[in-house]
């Protein structure tokens, strides 16, 4: 595949791995957090961890939008579909996220809720036009990547004056989550979770640009390298981070120059700013309440706000008490440190957020890497 295979070349990967190993200072360890679930997935799927020297540890951050969606929000979506008869449209991987009372959107569907999987906010809008007699709610989740399409759908709904369309807005913001992690006790008290730098999100940065990360680099002295989701992108970013650490620098560098600029996509940012405003507080699954970390619909578009339209209240619901997702998302623990991992909590029956989406740290390790936890007798191929 042109423009993809070039970023999955094994020979180049080996060369990069050798370059990283050659630049490491022998007496120190390097811990980098890849914020984005897309990176976590790429690292696991292509076996990147195996190619990196043992001195380099990748910490899987909270950048999977499905993983950080709290139970209470899914409960709201289920409530609208099951109790209030709305058609709830949402992205595919939201369907399996566990909710209260052993439900999920998929299980609610089996109980008669009208839940539709869509591939875009525009498809949800189409559903509303096709079903004028029904309320259609778009359950909008995701980081800055999926926010502009939701904004455009809302603008279009307003233009058409669609009476039966609304959005349950659960869009969250990357920079606030990074700040939250950097402000957490484990990271601030040096030694508990050493984070030497961040692999910055690719798609998110196409929208917001590289500018917003400059604050972290300067304020917290943490280097950030924005990287694409291909495995070679990740390895190149690691090499760039290692160099910054060795040189005592902490700046924002852009590995993903093929798509990211400092300013980002201004048209998308304007659409988002027109339709959404900051929420004072929003609960993230595994991280708890994070101030100014999410968006809500502006008063001018209030008639399309499902929370107002359906009179939804928000009730936080705690995770399973033995679930370690919060600590795993902050890099304090690894998936295998959780007693539920691989026994009670599996991709078929996820208990916590990190096991839900294939981009979650636990699911990635379970699905792609768990053979490393158990010695296996190998016969050479």
């Amino acid at each position, binding site marked *: 595949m042109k423009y993809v295979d070039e970023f999955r070349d094994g020979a180049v990967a080996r060369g990069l791995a050798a370059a990283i190993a050659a630049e490491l200072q022998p007496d120190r360890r390097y811990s980098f957090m890849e914020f984005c679930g897309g990176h976590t997935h790429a690292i696991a799927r292509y*076996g990147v961890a195996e190619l990196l020297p043992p001195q380099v540890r990748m910490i899987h951050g909270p950048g999977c*939008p499905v993983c950080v969606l709290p139970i209470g929000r899914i409960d709201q979506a289920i409530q609208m579909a099951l109790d209030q008869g709305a058609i709830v449209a949402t992205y595919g991987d*939201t369907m399996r996220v566990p909710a209260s009372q052993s439900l999920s959107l998929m299980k609610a569907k089996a109980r008669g809720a009208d839940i*539709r999987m869509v591939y875009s906010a525009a498809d949800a809008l189409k559903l509303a036009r096709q079903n004028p007699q029904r309320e259609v709610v778009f359950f909008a989740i995701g980081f800055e990547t999926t926010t502009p399409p939701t904004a455009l759908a809302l603008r279009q709904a307003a233009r058409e004056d669609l009476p039966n369309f609304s959005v349950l807005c659960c869009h969250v913001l990357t920079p606030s989550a990074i700040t939250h992690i950097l402000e957490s006790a484990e990271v601030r008290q040096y030694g508990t979770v050493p984070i030497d730098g961040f692999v910055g999100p690719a798609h998110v940065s196409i929208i917001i640009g590289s500018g917003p990360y400059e604050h972290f680099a300067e304020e917290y002295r943490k280097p950030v390298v924005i990287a694409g989701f291909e495995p070679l992108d990740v390895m190149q970013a690691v090499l760039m981070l290692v160099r910054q650490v060795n040189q005592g620098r902490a700046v924002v560098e852009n590995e993903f120059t093929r798509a990211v600029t400092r300013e980002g996509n201004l048209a998308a940012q304007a659409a988002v700013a027109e339709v959404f405003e900051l929420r004072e507080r929003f609960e993230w699954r595994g991280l708890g309440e994070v101030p100014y970390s999410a968006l809500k619909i502006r008063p001018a578009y209030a008639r399309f706000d499902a929370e107002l339209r359906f009179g939804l209240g928000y009730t936080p619901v705690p995770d399973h008490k033995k679930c370690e997702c919060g600590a795993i998302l902050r890099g304090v623990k690894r998936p295998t440190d959780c007693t539920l991992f691989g026994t009670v909590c599996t991709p078929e029956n996820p208990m916590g957020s990190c096991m839900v989406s294939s981009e979650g740290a636990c699911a990635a390790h379970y699905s792609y890497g768990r*053979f490393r936890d*158990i010695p*296996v007798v190998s016969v050479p191929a």
Partner: protein
Amino acid sequence: MSVKPNYIRPIDFKHGRVDMNHGAGGRAGAQLIEELFARAFDNPALRQGDDGAALDMPAGHRLVMATDGHVISPLEFPGGDIGCLSVHGTLNDVAMMGAQPLYLAASFILEEGFALAELKRIVESMAAAARDAGVPIVTGDTKVVERGKGDGVFIATTGVGALPAGRRIGGAQARAGDVVLLSGSIGEHGVAVLSQRESLEFETAIVSDTAALHGLVAQLLAAVPEGAVHTLRDPTRGGLATTLNEIARQCGAGMLLHEADIPVQPQVEAACELLGLDPLYIANEGKLVAIVAPEHAAAALAALQAHPLGRAATRIGVVQEDPHGFVQMCTRFGGRRVVDWLSGEPLPRIC
């Protein structure tokens, strides 16, 4: 007074729709069977019109039986439809036992309101598939459910075949050291169907690989000594990954695959990339996995490649000792990872 030559008005296949009368056990149902199913599937056993079919079996063989329900949306897709799929799917299940498929039975669940023209197309496609495979549909059944209680048409088929008495082919027969062969590129059926889904609709030149594989199996088995082929399996739902995990569990061993040796057409790879899906988990309907004793692997691979349905066959890995039954893969990138069971439906990722 003149006598009318035929008091029964022929079914209007152009404009007609399935109605509850077609399933009521009366004249309308009999007429549908006679004018559609019996005519399309015509063979001596079916022509008897009895409740079942009395059939001959070759001497010295054991009977193999397989059954499969077909529910698919959309009913027609690039390269096929539910009709030919319901023939190929069940024939292949029989063939994967190392048996020669001999007869098929078919059961139709029709939804009230379903267009007879579409039903006719599906039935004729099914008849053509059975004819091409040389396996007659010898008995069947038709039921009608109320509108909204079906999805147009569901087809369940049962196949029987003849297995030479001493032949043992199955998942449990695979053992460490065996070679894993794949008959061609993966993911075409699943991508062809996905491309037609109402909510997705993308343009692709990919057509389903749906095909009857018993000819390919016969050629493979003829090329190697009896007992050399340990396992045959067609990687349908759940794709290659799920199939190999099933076999690993059955035989109590693991596998080590090489990603670079697993053929995937560029269009399939591109569609999967776009949707955030993995070709290893996408359904196939015309491919097989053969697990063969290492000393006969080269001959087996050559036999597969000599058949039109196996031209792109490759050796994709080996069976290895592993009490945990992990299917592992050396990635093209140079790392190693588990190729796990599919968890639920393959769902596209959001970004």
